[in-house]
């Protein structure tokens, strides 16, 4: 069995704000972390490895410092990590990202299950998983919280807003993982020691035989043309005082919103 985990390094998003004066993203002092959903994806892969044996390869597309996140993944128990890094990958939207990941995965070859997070907490699109599955021609399931391999197929349970669907996917397959898969385990001491020494190869556009029209900004049909702070919300009419008086005032205001 070979499992591939797609992992993205993201800023701690609750710290990313817009500078109201310049209208630019404030990034100073914002730590980079492994996308939390990708830790769940990695945990899912580790569970698969515990149950069925095999090897876990983690890949990430990002700038050189993404290597840190990959080392951390090895500490958690991944066997190998590959960094996809090239100036030409910069500015990728989900279409270009999924193409780049697909090229790398084709080069790795011989995989059984690809694990992605449900979504990245910065871009927040949740699109890379399904797009990647399409590019590789794989069956896939999103929002997976439970899975097992049975008679050569992958049986998954996944949450939709109105219920739980059980799907049978032909292998190889791709899944995107939600938090209900279970808390990620703690990295082990051996894992950390291995991570410190691990050699993490860097694959550039050339190495994955990428068509330069399909990567980075060139391969990205979407453009972010503006970023701004969400409109300040909240009228902030705050009542203090006796509860029965406060609720009277509140009900007067709410009359306009719902029928009271």
């Amino acid at each position, binding site marked *: 069995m070979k499992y591939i985990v797609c992992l993205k390094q993201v800023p701690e998003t609750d710290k990313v704000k817009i500078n109201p004066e310049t209208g630019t993203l404030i990034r100073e002092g914002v730590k980079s972390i492994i996308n939390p959903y990708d830790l769940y994806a990695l945990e899912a892969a580790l569970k698969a490895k515990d149950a069925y044996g095999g090897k876990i390869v983690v890949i990430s597309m990002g700038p050189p410092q993404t290597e840190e996140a990959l080392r951390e993944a090895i500490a958690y128990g991944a066997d190998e990590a590959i960094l996809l890094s090239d100036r030409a990958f910069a500015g990728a939207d989900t279409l270009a990202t999924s193409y780049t990941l697909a090229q790398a995965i084709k080069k790795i070859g011989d995989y059984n299950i690809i694990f992605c997070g449900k979504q990245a907490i910065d871009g927040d699109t949740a699109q890379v998983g399904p797009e990647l599955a399409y590019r590789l021609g794989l069956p896939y399931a999103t929002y997976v919280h439970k899975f097992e391999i049975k008679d050569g197929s992958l049986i998954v349970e996944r949450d939709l807003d109105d219920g739980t669907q059980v799907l049978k996917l032909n292998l190889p397959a791709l899944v995107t993982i939600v938090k209900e898969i279970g808390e990620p385990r*703690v990295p082990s*001491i051996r894992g*950390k020691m291995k991570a410190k020494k691990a050699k993490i190869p860097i694959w550039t556009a050339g190495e994955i035989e990428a068509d330069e029209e399909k990567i980075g900004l060139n391969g990205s049909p979407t453009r972010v043309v503006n970023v701004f702070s969400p409109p300040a919300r909240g009228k902030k009419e705050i009542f203090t005082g006796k509860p029965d008086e406060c609720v009277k005032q509140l009900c007067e205001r709410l009359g306009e919103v719902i029928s009271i």
Partner: protein
Amino acid sequence: MLYPLIDEQEMIKEVARKIAEERIVPKRAELDEKEEFPWDILKEMAQADLFGIFIPEEYGGLGFGAFENCLAVEQIAWGCAGVATTYAASGLGAYPILLFGNEEQKKKYLPPIARGEKLAAFGLTEPDAGSDAGAIKTTAVKDGDYYILNGTKQWITNAGEAEIYTIIALTDKKKGPRGASAFIVEKGDPGFSFGKREKKMGIRASATGELIFEDCRIPKDRLLGREGMGFIIALKTLDYARPGVGALAVGLAQAALDEAIKYAKQRKQFGQAIINFQAVAHMLADMATQIEAARALTYTVCKYIDTKPKDFSKYAAMVKLFASDMAMKVTTDAVQILGGCGYMKDFPVEKMMRDAKILQIYEGTNQIQRNVIARELSKEYK
């Protein structure tokens, strides 16, 4: 940095800390309340390689020493002294095998302990033999290729939960303490059963119980070392384990201090945070100073042990004595600083105070530690 650590030591500390923060702290009150054995947490610790820190690599461990082990015990105890006791007691059960076992015994028993698949335990104490360990009555009689054990061990940590037990029993009653020997007994050996499970004041996440041997038959290759070496093995084991109690005390006291400072900065009385009252601030200052002194002693002695000295009984006893008395005082003061809240189960410090008490009792009471130290001193000044 006060205690510079190499990368690997830093990693051990980080892993243990993460388990304490994320897995132990959220569950400790419940474990304490229900006297529940923390299997889930132990599995996570096993998965994280914490059980094999001081066991050599050829026996499935990480090949570090007493110092690295202490770093881990300290952090786990910061989370919960009950879990830390369970963890440290498995090490206590492993030391006799590591120090005195033959190659076959080490190959067979150490790897599962190092991987945390099996817990170990150490059984010396009996109803009539506490501080006076020489008064044990459990016997082991040779019968061809077997030994037959009879007797009862009391208050044994990990009783019933461990798979591997090192037991001190008399092979020659006439010789008294010189007639004691050490054996490996496995859960499931015929005639080996478990008696009463104790209800305790503190460290309630740990299991303490009776081991009952009724014509318990074990193969003769379970003997550790030679016949008659039982007390040498027991005392050496305790020498190695006592600095672990020191680390446990330091971790526990640090947790109490952390809670006390947090509370003192946030609790307001007379219009200000109580940390502004000198009476409170000085208590905190004393607590911090005592902890640091205990930590320094613990680390120093552990590092000394790792140089493989011939005899370090005195220092091991000093660590255990000083650090456990310190933890008792610091946790009691932490309760005082939290006032009424300190006495309530909604806050963690009352548990810490209850937990701290055992550190002055087990692995030799602090009176006995003083005896050991005094005896060594008197030898030195002969």
